[in-house]
């Protein structure tokens, strides 16, 4: 049975990739299991400068999922290169996916250019859900033209495959994906979190210090799946699907919708062994559904 897939020219042993923000820079999980078992993983959203992020509470529970308002806390790209990547080298020998965030085109370009020089980095995943400081706080990902601008600018400074990570907070996800493909993207990943809120009945105020937070977990899965399906019809580059994945069945469902690989987010937080469990279950579930080679089912639901 074949579980390997090719993601933007790089072969990965299986399509299971822990999602950015739920796997740190890898070594917390290396205490639980050998993370070389993963296809790869996407490291914490990294910015040009260090960021502390939002005040706490940053986490709220909801039915079948969670809200987070971490606010892109990370040590900044220089520290990632000088501290996190060398530490990662001791526990992970595969190419890693570098997740990048920014608040201006220049931020993205700077950070991607710095990561382009790192041999441990296989892919650059560009999170365009961040607000554009030059655009009245509008996220780059909500407008096809700004999404394309980021893509073009980043492509100029790196030879690594660039995967643009889309925000689901848009009316026409396929249009944004096409604009990124036309601008040179090598792949599309989706979805980032949806925007939600929780109110504390005792204090009668939003529970999160940031008031709103990103919704993820099984609650978002149907939305994510629908979007992957729509994007598959609009682009011909590989898609990395995510949103609420918690089982090998979910992986197959996303691949049928059009994903070449998948990311697993919140599930890692509640079950640190989520990804190795899914990887171990895959052959059995493939057999159950008569699948010999995972690559053959990509987009199979269309």
């Amino acid at each position, binding site marked *: 049975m074949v579980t390997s897939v090719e993601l933007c020219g790089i072969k990965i042993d299986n399509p299971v990739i822990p999602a950015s923000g*739920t796997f740190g820079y890898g070594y*917390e999980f290396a*205490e639980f299991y050998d993370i070389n078992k993963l296809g790869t993983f996407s490291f914490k959203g990294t910015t040009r400068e260090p960021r*502390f992020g939002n005040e*706490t509470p940053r986490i709220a529970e909801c039915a079948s999922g969670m809200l987070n308002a971490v606010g892109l806390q990370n040590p900044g790209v220089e520290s990632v290169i000088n501290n996190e990547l060398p530490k990662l080298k001791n526990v992970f020998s595969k190419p890693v996916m570098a997740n990048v965030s920014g608040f201006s085109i220049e931020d993205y370009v700077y950070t991607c250019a710095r990561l382009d020089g790192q041999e441990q980095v296989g892919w650059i995943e560009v999170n365009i859900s961040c607000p554009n400081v030059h655009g009245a706080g509008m996220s780059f990902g909500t407008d096809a033209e700004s999404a394309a601008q980021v893509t073009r600018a980043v492509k100029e400074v790196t030879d690594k495959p660039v995967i643009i990570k889309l925000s689901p907070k848009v009316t026409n996800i396929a249009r944004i994906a096409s604009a990124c493909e036309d601008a040179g993207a090598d792949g599309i990943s989706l979805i980032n979190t949806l925007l939600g809120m929780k109110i504390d009945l005792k204090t009668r105020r939003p529970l999160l210090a940031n008031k709103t937070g990103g919704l993820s977990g099984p609650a978002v899965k149907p939305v994510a799946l629908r979007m992957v399906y729509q994007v598959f019809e609009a682009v011909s580059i590989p898609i990395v699907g995510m949103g609420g994945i918690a089982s090998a069945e979910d992986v197959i469902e996303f691949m049928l919708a059009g994903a070449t690989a998948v990311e697993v987010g919140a599930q890692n937080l509640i*079950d640190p062994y989520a990804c190795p469990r899914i990887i171990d279950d895959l052959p059995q579930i493939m057999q159950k559904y008569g699948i010999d080679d995972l690559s053959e089912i990509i987009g199979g639901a269309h």
Partner: protein
Amino acid sequence: MNETVLRVTSNKKIALNTYLMKLDGDCSAVTVPGQFVNISLSGFYLRRPISVCDYTSDSVTLIYKVVGGGTALMSELQPGAKLNVLTGLGNGYDDTLSGGRPLLVGGGAGVPPLYSLAKKLTAQGKKVMIILGFNTADEVFGEEEFRETGAEVFLTTVDGSAGTKGFVTDVMKELDYTYFYTCGPMPMLRAVDGIAVTDGQFSFEERMGCGFGACMGCSCKTKYGYKRICRDGPVLKREEIVW
């Protein structure tokens, strides 16, 4: 840290809305007083962090207050019930700094983690004092158990229905101690910091996504950069805390 399945061996009400649960199983990852476990409960997406009150290599004791759906579900569990638990989380208290006369200060649901610390310090021959603070007599627990460790126990209630009337700090300011360890609600921790005359350690709570350092959900600023309450804490030293 370790992921394991623990079996409930007893689960009893010990005070108003307060329960003591004993669990059996592989608890070898719990090695320091002040660490916590993170419990998966069916029907709830996130795990529930609860401090370890007492431990051996194959059992833990937890004391928890029912404040919402998750802890209410816990209170209904019967002996024999199995729980998926992450054990041995957090740094715990550093007992090497205690000096000869350490003072422990616990408020409400913050009292439990001080129990295994009191046992450890008295076993080292330290003269341990502990102040237990509650709102009212109905909430009081642990007085006898702490006394049995050999510690000198001071009980306070806000309404005076048991022990000394007032706050833990009313007693604390009269005592002569070499170091202190505390856990309790945030206003109490601030008050303790306000009157303490020595160095000490504070245990904090924060809403958690993972409980093992991966999500950055529980970060706080300290004098030495940010720390994660779940992994670099929950215990922080007085000199590093930014209030």
